[in-house]
Each structure stands twice: as structure tokens, then as C-alpha cells.
């Protein structure tokens, strides 16, 4: 009896909560699925801020064909939660489409749900190539993928790093190291492939556990392999660890090239102090681009500053903003909530490179991936992360590090 009562009351409680969600008929509901808690919370939240600015901007300009856009936040840290929240958004909230997700794991899982439910998914920041590589029809991605990161970093060696060091790229010895999570493994793997394809010499390629307390043996491996260039894909702690332990071991490569993560963060740069000078970093477009090549950049930064009181914390808000803006544009053009109409509109949507605040273009392939998204090469100069390549958005010239 008591067991029954308790069960019933618990479930009734659930149902009540579900029932209390107001909705006006003339609104358009869009889901925003990001990791707002857990280890990825910082960048998940940063990504969401970009979406919010895009939505606010659109609403101020009249919404989508006169309808106000209502953003419904959903938090997911892992696949399990992603599935649950995706179901909630698509069934309980009845959203027209979902924006997400920064975290590839969340995106991979949620899109399996939305695909079966027939709800379009607009990925704005997750990089795993498999998200648009599974043949799903209603998953679209505006941002660059892990392969873009990898290819750009190798290209940078040939086009920027080697010339700045005044050496032939083919004489350089590369070490590719990465944390063993999905992010590191993907980028590191593609870097190896691309380096091989372009005939560069890789002397060491090694995954390491992201939870390491000590990377001194990795440093020794890289050092004794004689690597000139270190390409590292890492988060905050391991970036710090590797730099410090390299310094202790007296190992000074001619260049470090990061791939986002810890390499893009101001906090890390501050902690490392002089050691960060000259370090390269491939990442999503940052706000320190040359605004001439990225129309709308200044306005975006101003809007962000106004709403949140500080400068954007990373490039994620920018790319989410640009992607969301484009997709909102597409929704307006489609003038329908029908998934096939939306897909049609996405595939037909064209914008030239350099036409928005991230200096991207838009051209979606059959798999839903934007082929004109890119990553840029940045470099830390005097404590600031400036863009050095491609020239159209470069705000500084590359320098030789310490």
C-alpha cells in the first residue's frame, strides 16, 4: 500500500512539473541543448551565450516571420542525459528545431533521437566528424570539424611556421600528442593522416591519459625523439603540465601548436606567463580577428559585453552566434516547420566566405556539413591571442617564440 502511494505521488509530481510549461501559440520554440553542468560547463555556457545573442538580435528585428523565438534550455552532460533531454524537447516542449551542443558525445546521442523524431538538429560547435558522417537527414552543422582543425594545423606548419623559422618544412620533425578523450583522439588522428599525406616527418605520436598527474616521461619521449614542433590537443591541466615539465626537462621545441582547448584560454596564458609567448593555436575564429575580414564582429562583441558585462571568454560564443544566425535565417526563409522543407532550404542556402562575423561562408553538403566553415591559426603575442592566418582575417604577423 505504502509502496503504491509513494510511487503514485512521485509520478504525479513528475506529471505536474511537466504540465506547467506555458506556451503561446504565436511563438516559435527552439531547444538549446548544451552541457550546463559538469566539466564542460564553462564552454557549454559560453556556446549558449552566442545562441542567445543571435536569438535576441532576431527577435528585436521582428522574430521569424513575425513570430517570437522562445529558447528552451536543456542541460546534458553525457549521452544518457542527452537522450532524455532530446526526448523532452521534442515531445513535451514540441520544439521546431534544436540548437546544440559543443560536446560531441551529447550531440551524437541527441541526434539519434531527433532523427527518429523527425526534428531538425542544428549543431553549432561540436567537432566530431561522425556527427554529420552517419547519413542522417535532419542533422546540420555550421562549424568546422576535427578534421578542419587537424588540416589547418598541418597546413600552418607549411605556410606559416616553417617560413617564420626560415626552414624547409620537410626538414622539421613533428611530435603529435593528445589527451585520450574523444576530442584529442580525433584531432590527433587526423593530424597524423594529414602530415603523412603532405610528406611531413612525424617522429612521435602519442596519446596520454587526460587524468595524468605527471607527464615527465612523455616529455622525455618527445625530447629524445628530437621533435622540433609539438602539436598538442589538450585541455587546461595537461597543457599546463606539459609546458612546465618541458621547461624543467630543458626541452624547447621550436614551436608549439595547440588545437583549441587549453591553448585558447586566457587563464592558462596568464599562468604560463612568458612561456606562452609565440605559441601557436588553431581554433575557431576568435574575436581578435581583423574586423575588416569579419563583418559584424565588432557589433557582436559589443552586444556580448552589454549583456554579460565582460568580453567573450572564448571563440565559442562567436561561432555559435554566427551559426545560429544563419539557421534562424534559414528557418525564416523556409517559412515552415516541416522538416523536409527546412532541409531543402538548408541545402539551398549559400553565403560567400567572409560574409559574417566569423569570416565564414555557408554551403551545406548532402550530409548537412557546412563546407565553408574554417578554423584559423592564432598566436600568443604579448599575452594576447591574435589571429595570424589566413591573411584575410590576420590581425598580426607571426613571430618567432622564445
Amino acid at each position, binding site marked *: 500500500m505504502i509502496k503504491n502511494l509513494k510511487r503514485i505521488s512521485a509520478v504525479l509530481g513528475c506529471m505536474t512539473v511537466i504540465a506547467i510549461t506555458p506556451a503561446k501559440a504565436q511563438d516559435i520554440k527552439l531547444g538549446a541543448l548544451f552541457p550546463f*553542468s559538469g566539466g564542460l560547463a564553462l564552454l557549454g555556457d559560453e556556446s549558449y551565450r552566442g545562441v542567445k545573442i543571435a536569438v535576441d538580435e532576431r527577435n528585436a528585428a521582428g522574430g521569424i516571420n513575425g513570430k517570437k523565438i522562445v529558447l528552451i534550455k536543456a542541460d546534458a552532460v553525457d549521452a544518457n542525459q542527452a537522450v532524455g533531454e532530446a526526448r523532452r524537447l521534442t515531445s513535451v516542449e514540441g520544439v521546431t528545431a534544436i540548437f546544440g551542443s559543443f560536446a560531441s558525445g551529447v550531440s551524437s546521442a541527441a541526434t539519434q533521437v531527433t532523427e527518429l523524431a523527425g526534428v531538425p538538429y542544428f549543431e553549432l560547435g561540436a567537432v566530431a566528424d561522425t556527427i554529420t558522417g552517419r547519413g542522417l537527414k535532419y542533422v546540420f552543422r555550421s562549424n568546422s570539424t576535427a578534421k578542419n582543425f587537424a588540416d589547418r594545423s598541418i597546413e600552418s606548419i607549411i605556410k606559416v611556421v616553417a617560413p617564420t623559422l626560415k626552414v624547409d618544412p620537410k626538414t622539421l620533425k613533428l611530435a603529435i600528442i593528445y589527451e585520450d578523450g574523444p576530442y584529442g583522439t580525433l584531432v590527433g588522428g587526423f593530424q597524423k593522416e594529414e602530415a603523412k599525406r603532405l610528406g611531413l616527418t612525424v617522429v612521435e605520436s602519442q596519446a596520454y591519459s587526460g587524468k595524468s598527474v605527471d607527464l615527465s616521461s612523455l616529455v622525455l619521449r618527445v625530447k629524445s625523439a628530437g621533435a622540433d614542433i609539438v602539436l598538442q590537443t589538450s585541455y587546461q591541466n595537461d597543457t599546463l603540465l606539459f609546458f612546465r615539465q618541458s621547461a624543467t626537462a630543458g626541452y624547447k621545441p621550436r614551436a608549439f601548436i595547440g588545437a583549441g582547448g587549453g591553448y585558447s584560454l586566457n587563464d592558462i596564458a596568464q599562468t604560463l606567463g612568458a612561456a606562452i609567448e609565440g605559441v601557436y593555436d588553431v581554433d575557431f575564429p576568435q574575436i581578435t580577428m581583423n574586423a575588416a575580414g569579419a563583418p559584424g564582429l565588432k557589433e557582436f562583441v559589443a552586444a556580448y559585453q552589454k549583456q554579460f558585462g565582460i568580453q567573450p571568454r572564448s571563440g565559442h560564443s562567436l561561432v555559435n552566434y554566427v551559426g545560429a544566425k544563419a539557421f534562424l535565417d534559414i528557418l525564416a526563409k523556409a517559412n515552415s516547420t516541416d522538416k523536409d522543407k527546412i532541409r531543402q532550404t538548408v541545402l539551398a542556402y549559400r553565403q560567400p566566405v567572409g560574409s559574417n562575423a566569423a569570416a565564414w561562408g555557408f554551403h551545406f553538403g548532402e550530409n548537412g556539413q557546412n563546407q565553408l566553415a574554417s578554423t584559423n591559426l592564432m598566436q600568443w603575442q604579448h599575452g594576447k591571442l591574435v589571429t595570424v592566418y589566413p591573411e584575410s582575417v590576420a590581425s598580426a604577423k607571426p613571430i618567432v617564440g622564445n
Partner: protein
Amino acid sequence: MLPNFNNPRVYVSLLSLLILLALPLAVQSPFVYHLAIQVCVFAGLAAAWNIVGGFAGQLSLGHAVFYGIGSYTAGLLVAKFGISPWIGMFVGAALSMVAATIIAYPTLRLRGPFFSLATIAFLEVARLLVIYMGSWTGGSAGLNVPLQIGLPWMIFREKSAYLFVAFGFLVVTLWVSWLVRHSRFGFYLIAVREREDAARAVGVNAVRVKIAAAVISAALTSFIGSFHAMYLTFVEPSAAFSLEMSIQIAMFALIGGLGTVAGPVIGTVMVLPVAELARGWLSAFGNGTHGFVYGMLLVVTVLFIPRGLVGHLGKSAQRLIDRLPSRRTDVKTNTTLAQKTSPARHQGKPVLKAEGLYKRFGGLQATNDVSITLHAGEILGVIGPNGAGKTTVFNQLSGFIRPDQGTVSVLTEDGQWITPTSPETFARAGVGRTFQVVQPFAGLSVMENIMLGAFMHTSDKAQAKAIAIEVAEITDLTTLLDTEARGLTVGGMKRLEVARALATRPRVLLLDEVLAGLNPSDVVRAIEMIRRIRDAGVSVLMIEHLMQATMALSDRIIVIHLGRVLKEGQPADVVNDPEVIQAYLGKGYVHAQAA
């Protein structure tokens, strides 16, 4: 094999369980479906965990390793070889069972946290290896299960189909859990968990039983892992081999009530839906609020309701439920009881021989060349001053201590002499014993305690019950059969010790100070009981300090002093022997005559 559906406890539980199905079908919201499926999955995991964590009392903190093995095996088989997950899950279960044996075999012999730590270590190793072998497991990026719709692939468009499958897994898990709990195996698990030594003394191979529980639990966990992989259609190492999940399922079982069948389900139903719904709301307060509340919940539960909801509220719930109508069919008791021990065919002949026993503990020679022979039908009293080494000898006669030198041989029913080496083999050879510090299985009833002994010769509950009733008569416990053992008086507990040993149908019964702490009338009853036991054909060896009782009962007396046999012979002779008096009372009393 199946519960009695006429019993109100059973049908109320089943009806409650059906709500998990009925509610989502009624509401028809994919979110409620998702929640119900989550509840089924996690309740199933918690129930499976409970078999080793609750029933057997072995805290597995890395249980997700079996979930992960199940997920990856099924996922890989379908992704790489197109093999149906219905088959894949059996492969996964087999692998999990092997893994469980590997972890359990070395660690469950030991007491302490070794099993727990080993499960965590295994979990980490599995996770790291799966990441390392990324080329065929998909590594950290995870494995996408191909979206093939249909029953053979366990992937459906309709959420209700998932729910039915998940519910099915839950029901199977609960059924296995119920079977374990109500079988002899379940009795053994509880006995081992509560008092491993006492369990071994009634013939339970404690290690084997614990390993069996771990293996069963692993297989069930693995099945659910396989299903879940198909539900999420995405498997990745950190989620599949997650320490948090391992702790979470243990927590659900704890909150509901460890060691009960319903506990894990109740715990999951209470916590999971609320946690899912609260997540979004709590996140508004900042990162980590959700986890913080979980942690506090765990601490609070442990401090205030350690026996879980079922443990604390179960009795009152059961009382209410029992008021409901039932059609109790009369259970036919098996009237052909097990044979009484055949009256000693070998009257007077030796049944237990200890020859030349030596045992040293560090600097102390506790047993110094002790030889004892027990004859059929005799009551042999063992006396001696405190610290003489009587209990040490006892422990060597029952397998709890191995002598450094010397042998102990037991005459089996078919006239063979064997030399057992462990408590359970001694028990099976026909040597029963009691413990000086009584060790009843506190949470079980008197009847169930005695049945534990009876289970050594039968796995049928009805038979065991019959034996227990019979033994209870001999030991004067008939009126107390339904009381919980923890509620007995000292006298009752001592008789229970004897009863439990008797239920194993021993030919030799070792009694360790069974009269200590009894009041005079209880002593008289006990003496009569021991006589009845001997008359029923059991040879008795008893350590005692009560001289009158020993004199009254014993056919022969052995005196042990400083680890050696000081004197052996008829009671009157031994007691009046000057050396014996000197040993007990000191030189000054040698000339005082014993009464």
C-alpha cells in the same frame, strides 16, 4: 520456482510494478516513456548489484565494468559483424561472468575492502583498454550503433516497444533476485554475510557461494548493459565504464534497502525521476548543485536510514498488505522426514580420532602432543583451567585451525576414515559444532537459523523445514520457531547453536561451553537435551567448566593443561586426581577433597 501468486505480498508487488508499464502507455509522452525506461534500466542494475552487494554483502564499487562489457560486446557485434544484440548480449554475459570470476576468486577469500578496490581497478583497466584499442572499439569518440529498426536489432521507432523490452529485463532480473533470496543459495548468502564462520560450520563453502553471487550479478548487469547500448545507440568508454554509475546503482539499492528484493526497485523509483526532473532546476543554482545534493542524500541515508526504506518501513507496509485477502493453498508438508541417524551400529568403536596434534602461535605452544579418541555413543567431557588450550583443540577438531603436526580423522557413515581440512569439509564429514561466543544469524528467525543447518543435506525448503521442526523438539525450541534470533535469551541462543549444528545430522557434536552463563533451571534443561542428543545416536565431545554437569553427563573425562593431556579416565578418578587438583587450584588445595 515461481512466487505464490495468491499471497497478497506477491500480487501487490506485481501490480505496483505494472504501474511502470501502465503509466507511460496511458500518458503517451515520449519523455515519460524515457523516464520509465530509465527507471527500468537502473532498477534492474540496482537489483542485479544487490545480489552481490546486498545479499552477499560484498560491496562492488566498479560494477559498471559488467555493464560496459555488455554494452560494448553487443554494440561491436552488431556494428562490425551484423550479429543481433539478442545473441550479442549472451556473449557479453559470458564475458562478464568470466571477468567476475577473475575478480572474485582471489579477492573474495579475503575479508576487508579488497573486493571493492579490485572492482574499481578492473573498471579503470577496462576503460583504458577500450580507449587504447580505439581502432576497433571506436575509442574515446565512441561507437555508433547502426540505426537498423526492428526487433532483431532491438531498435524501435515506437518508444513503447523499448519500454516493453526494458520492463522485460527488469522482471527477469527481479525474478532471479527473488529466486536467489528464497532458495537455499539465498540462505547461504545471508549466512555468509552475517557470520561467515558459523556458516562454514554448517557446511557452507563460503568462497564458492560468494563467487556464485558475483557471477550471477555480473551476467544480469551485462544483459541490461547490452539493452541500454541499443537504446542509446551510442556507446562511449567514460559513460559505459563509469565510476559514478557504479556508485549510483549501489546508492539506489542502499536507499531502498540492501538485501531485499523490492529495495533496489523502490530506491530507484524514489530517487531517479526526481533527480532527472530536478537536474534542470538545480543547474540554475550553479554547476555541481545536482551532484552535491546526491552526495548529501547518500550521507543522510547512511546515517539515518541505513537499512533503507524497506528495512525501516517494510514491516508496517507488510502488515497492511497482509490484511488483504489471500487464497493460501495448504502447503503439503513432506511427511516422510529424513531418517534419524541410525542407532550407532558401531557402538563403542572410535568415530573421531585426533593423533599427535601440535600447534604453535608465535612463542606459545598452544597444543602440545594432544591425542583424543571419541567413541560412538559416548559423551566425552574436556576440562581444564582457563588458557589450557581447550578451544584451540576444538578448532583443530572442526577445521578452523590447521595443526602444525598431527592428524584428525573422522569416520564417515560408510565406515571410511577421512581427514578433512576445512570447516565445511568437517561439517560434511559429520562433525557439528557450536561456538563459545554464540553466533546466531540475527536477522533470521529461529526456524531459518536451524534450516541453515538442515540445508547441508537437502536443497528443498519443505524438507529443511521438517528437519528443523524435529530438531527444535529435541532442543526445546518449538515455541520459539518464529521469533527472530536476535530476540532470544542467552539460554535460547545457546540451544539454537546446538539445534543448528544438530540439523546437519552430525555423527559427532562438539559443544564449546554450551552451559556457560545459564541459570540453574536452564542448566538442567540443557543436561537433559544433551542426553537426548546422545540417545539419538550422536557422539558428544563437550568443553565445560560446570563440574557438576560434566560429572553428571560424561562417560569419560579428559583434562587438558598447558596444551597437553594431563589425565584421562572415569569422571570420579579424574576429578580426585591430585595432579588435576593442583592444575586447577594450585598446590595448596591438593589435600582438599573434591565433593
